């Protein structure tokens, strides 16, 4: 192959770069856009809260969480729900503030042009003290002019064809990764804690749970939670924990109802996880409680609201790790080495009698 096509290609890249907009230009243009905001917001070295909060270190900040500024209830609530300012959320908010947060007190119609928003964000990002820019590394005060200049340098070090892929960065010390979007956290963070934290809205009755259980669960757990083959037994066993052969079920052993809900919601039915609606999970949990005589009315409805009123009987029987109180845990410097037993060892029990070891195909492994 001749070098000619390659040369063309590289020229094309350079050409497109030349015709495009550099990071520094974005910041410069963003500064112009910011004029619309300046009445209420300050940025830069001496920025203070004005009518609106200052916008230094905005990226990665939780909405409504900046200390010393009095936010609207709506903004605080959005933050509590996990809204964190990043490229996407700022873009949405600035497009039409009242669309993202209905009762925000920010009186601003919005920026219609995508380019304006992008430039504004590039400008605001230059006031991020730990965004990994040269300015931050040198620990210089973030000043509008200087940061523009520094960012120009950064842009020039990218050396050619593409913008760095992680240009936005995590905002952390190493600036690796990116901020998780609210929707992303919502999609994955569906676990429920023992005290019900994380429960979704919803409800379901015992009677509604029964047909779902029969259809989705009974093939392994049995119609009454008695367990088929070696699949887990879900019900019964109460009062057997001190027996020689205890039966550990939800009713006899599990400490928290939330664990039932959480596990069904995230991992059941086996082989088709995440296929049940939240209401179905409430109904199934209610039904399993019913199978264990924790609730006795078929019309009982379990919901987010009454969830914590249902306690499992064995909750109080869980204790901390107390292994180190056992006598043999006492540290020993020199264990017995000679004549440790009064007489020669005698055989008491042999594994081969049981005959439960799978046959190895290895010569001499087993009888």
């Amino acid at each position, binding site marked *: 192959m001749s070098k000619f096509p390659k040369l063309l290609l590289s020229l094309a890249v350079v050409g497109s770069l030349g015709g495009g907009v550099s990071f520094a230009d974005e910041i410069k243009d963003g500064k112009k856009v910011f004029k619309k905001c300046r009445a209420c917001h300050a940025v830069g070295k001496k920025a203070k809260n004005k009518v609106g909060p200052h916008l230094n270190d905005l990226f990665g900040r939780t909405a409504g969480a900046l200390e010393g500024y009095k936010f609207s209830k709506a903004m605080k609530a959005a933050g509590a729900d996990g809204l964190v300012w990043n490229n996407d959320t700022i873009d949405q908010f600035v497009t039409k503030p009242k669309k993202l947060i209905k009762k925000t007190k920010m009186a601003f119609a919005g920026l219609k042009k995508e380019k304006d928003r992008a430039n504004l964000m590039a400008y605001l990002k230059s006031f991020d003290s730990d965004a990994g820019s040269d300015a931050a590394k040198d620990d210089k005060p973030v000043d509008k002019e200087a940061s523009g200049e520094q960012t120009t340098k950064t842009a020039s070090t990218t050396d050619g064809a593409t913008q760095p892929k992680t240009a936005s960065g995590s905002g*952390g010390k190493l600036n690796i990764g990116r901020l998780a979007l609210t929707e992303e956290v919502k999609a994955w963070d569906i676990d429920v804690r023992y005290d019900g934290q994380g429960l979704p809205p919803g409800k379901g009755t015992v009677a509604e749970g029964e047909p779902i259980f029969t259809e989705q669960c009974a093939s392994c757990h049995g119609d009454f939670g008695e367990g088929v083959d070696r699949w887990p037994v879900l019900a019964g066993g109460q009062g057997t924990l001190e027996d020689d052969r205890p039966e550990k079920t*939800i009713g006899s052993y599990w400490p928290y109802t939330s664990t039932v809900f959480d596990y069904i919601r995230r991992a059941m039915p086996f082989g088709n996880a995440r296929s049940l609606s939240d209401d179905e999970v409430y109904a199934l949990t209610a039904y399993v409680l019913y199978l264990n005589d924790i609730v006795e009315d078929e019309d009982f409805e379990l919901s987010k609201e009454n969830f914590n009123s249902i306690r499992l009987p064995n909750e109080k029987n869980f204790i901390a790790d107390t292994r180190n109180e056992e006598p043999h845990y006492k540290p020993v410097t020199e264990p017995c080495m000679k004549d440790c037993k009064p007489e020669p060892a005698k055989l008491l029990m042999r594994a081969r009698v049981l005959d439960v070891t799978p046959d190895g195909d290895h010569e001499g492994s087993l009888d």
Partner: protein
Amino acid sequence: MSLSHRDDQKEVVNVGRRRLLTSGAAGGATLLASATNALSASKPDPAITEIQDWNRYTGDGVDARPYGTPSAFEKDVVRRNVPWLTADPIASVNFTPLHELDGIITPNGLCFERHHGGIAEIDPAEHRLMINGLVERPLVFTMEDLMRFPRVNRVYFLECAANTGMEWRGAQLNGCQFTHGMIHNVMYTGVPLRLLLEEAGVKTAGKWVLPEGADASHMTRSIPLEKALDDCIVAFKMNGEALRPEQGYPVRLVVPGWEGNMWVKWLRRIEVGDQPWHHREETSKYTDLLESGKARRFTWEMDVKSVITNPSPQAPLTHGSGHTVLSGVAWSGSGKVKRVDVSIDGGRNWQTSRLDGPSLSKSMHRFYFDFDWDGSEMFLQSRAMDENGQVQPTKNQLREARGPNSVYHNNSIQTWHVKPDGSAENVEIS
């Protein structure tokens, strides 16, 4: 020649007499017979005198095995399952063939497997690791991102809390693969979890983390933040190469010294919270029921433990009496193993074994006891001590303290009964 032969024989007899005097056990006859056999190879060995195929003909070229596999003669060195243990192999366990291994590193293909929803087959390009909860910045990392954090290399054992769990009530499974094979020892390469948490910025209220797997079981465990910041690793390599799919490819959590269930595979999310979650695997499972009906929870650390891997039921002594290499592995979740004592008479008398190979904290250690077997029956035991002075207990000590239904954390001393014919069995003794 005949003279020297007789001299050799006399020497063996003398050795045999010495052993007989000291051990006082029967079996001298076996000893003499096998010793005579050992010296009677008077015919030339065809393995030496005949030209073998591999001496003459060329073998496979370099590209025949782009990813090398063991010799065909090692086909029995595999993980094995105990089918009756669980309802379905998708949520089950198999066992490392400890009796076939040596040194301290477990080869990747032999590391035991434990899955709760089968093996997740994940395209690393589609894998994400999220950090959320009580952090300044909820973050998402790609695998490429993870590779940009400073890395560490550490060797750690991973032991399932249920390892040896089937043996609580008595000797049950006949082979150290089955009694002790829910363990492996691997060098991990990865990023300290601390660095990832620092990148997200843990809020002062954050006290616990909840790692979550991307597989169909959505495995979660609560881990105290102190441990997460101490020595946990988000690992993407094992023994130098990418994690195997069954070990959590493309990325898993490493929780040194703590029970294997916490080492979440296919790690996709780490949530920071102010309290533990009490999820299924830390309430209904991996809690230790005592005789009183109370159950211990959050029993994370794996106690000091050892087992003799050779000889053992799957690896009998086939050479007869004479110089014998007894070997095994020892480990402790709280640090290094300081010493392993070995008994051939069921714990009446002990001798200190020889540790060989790297001695690393929270890693397997290899021990050897080289001795002259007189051919009589033996009750083999090993007893490990760690650097903190913890000594491996007997089965009865554990049963007295916990009753027969504790299931997890059985680190008791194992007994193998070796008979004069060299075969071995899992037994309990007085």
